[in-house]
């Protein structure tokens, strides 16, 4: 194998230095093995990524839309990039869905924070602000209501809402968020109450 020379290699300097036809053949075989291993690792990485992508692409897009609004594509790209770069840490200790949620939510929340900070520094803000709440309609559809609810909630509650919308179990939700199941149940209950208030408010003309 190519890499650190073994202890035995130091004992045979003449054989190592003299490039005979045979040595070239040995080196070439080693390089082939190295390339094959690297290619196989890259293929493993690619197939793992493709598998996760097929199972979770819709979920990541929905998370990106919830956090980024008009900048969904930018955030989705960022999530995909961070998933790709974090693949080495995927050891199968937790379910793949838990791992994917963690990376996607942490990326989305970080992206939103840095985007808000960047926009605050801009002298003239464009109208695609991620921070602004959408204007509510009299009879909003699901997406509009969700968008408005998301704008109303704190960063922690946003993550909890998305997980409960996706029917994630409380035990998995606890693993993803880092809070206890009981506390999350209470939090989800409060979010549902807030949604009901919002819905009534919209139908009563605010």
């Amino acid at each position, binding site marked *: 194998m190519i890499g650190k020379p073994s202890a035995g290699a130091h004992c045979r300097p003449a054989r190592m230095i003299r490039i005979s036809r045979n040595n070239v053949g040995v080196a070439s075989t080693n390089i082939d093995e190295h390339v094959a291993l690297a290619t196989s690792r890259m293929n493993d990485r*690619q197939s793992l990524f493709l598998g996760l992508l097929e199972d979770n692409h819709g979920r990541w*897009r929905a998370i990106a839309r919830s956090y980024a609004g008009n900048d969904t594509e930018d955030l989705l790209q960022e999530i*995909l990039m961070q998933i790709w770069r974090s693949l080495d840490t995927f050891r199968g200790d937790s379910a793949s869905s838990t791992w994917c949620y963690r990376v996607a939510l942490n990326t989305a929340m970080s992206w939103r924070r840095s985007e808000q900070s960047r926009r605050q520094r801009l002298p003239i803000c464009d109208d695609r602000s991620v921070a602004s709440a959408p204007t509510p309609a009299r009879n909003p559809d699901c997406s509009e*209501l969700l968008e408005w609810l998301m704008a109303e909630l704190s960063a*922690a509650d946003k993550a909890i809402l998305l997980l409960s919308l996706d029917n994630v179990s409380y035990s998995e939700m606890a693993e993803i968020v*880092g*809070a*206890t199941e*009981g506390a999350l149940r209470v939090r989800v209950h409060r979010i549902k109450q807030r949604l009901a208030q919002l819905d009534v408010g919209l139908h009563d003309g605010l």
Partner: protein
Amino acid sequence: MDFEELQKNWRSEVNRPQGAADVQKLLLDVQRQCNGLERSAHRRDVREILEAVLVVAFFAAGWPIFSHSLAASVGIALIVLGYLIIVLTRLSSRRPEPMPLDASVLQFSRQRLAWIDRQMRLLTTGMWWYATPSFIGLPLAAWGLTAGNRLYFILLLTSIVAASVHYVYSRRKIARNQWQPVRDELAQLVAALGTIDRP
């Protein structure tokens, strides 16, 4: 509209099928972007090392002019040393431990908060060790180069002090305007998640 309806809508969006060709294209895009990111980080590192080499070369070329005065020589040596410290610090801080994005939201937020606190501390107080060699070196070099001419020395020293004040002020402004809002939001998130169990 109730929670179940929102949930149904969400599930339909999540379960929307993705074409095989799109998936391959996404993979290629991600690989291309990651490679681009690594290339630009590498280019930035190379540029900073080249800058350091140029600064050292500039002062080395001018050494016959500085070397007639001990004060100027010591001052210039301190400036070069300070510059090298800055470059080395910047290059080493570019290799932080990878972001633990697969940690729970609470753990990740705590780690980010600690990281932001370190960055802010570096910006507001770090300059005293970060830039001290240059701040001592510049007046010394000025004294040596002006050969004791008080007027030139005072002019140079005033410029140096003004530049130093501007440097300190701008670092603090960056910490206050760019980092503090992010820190506040993150602290709020950590507090919300950390105290989520309390009624």
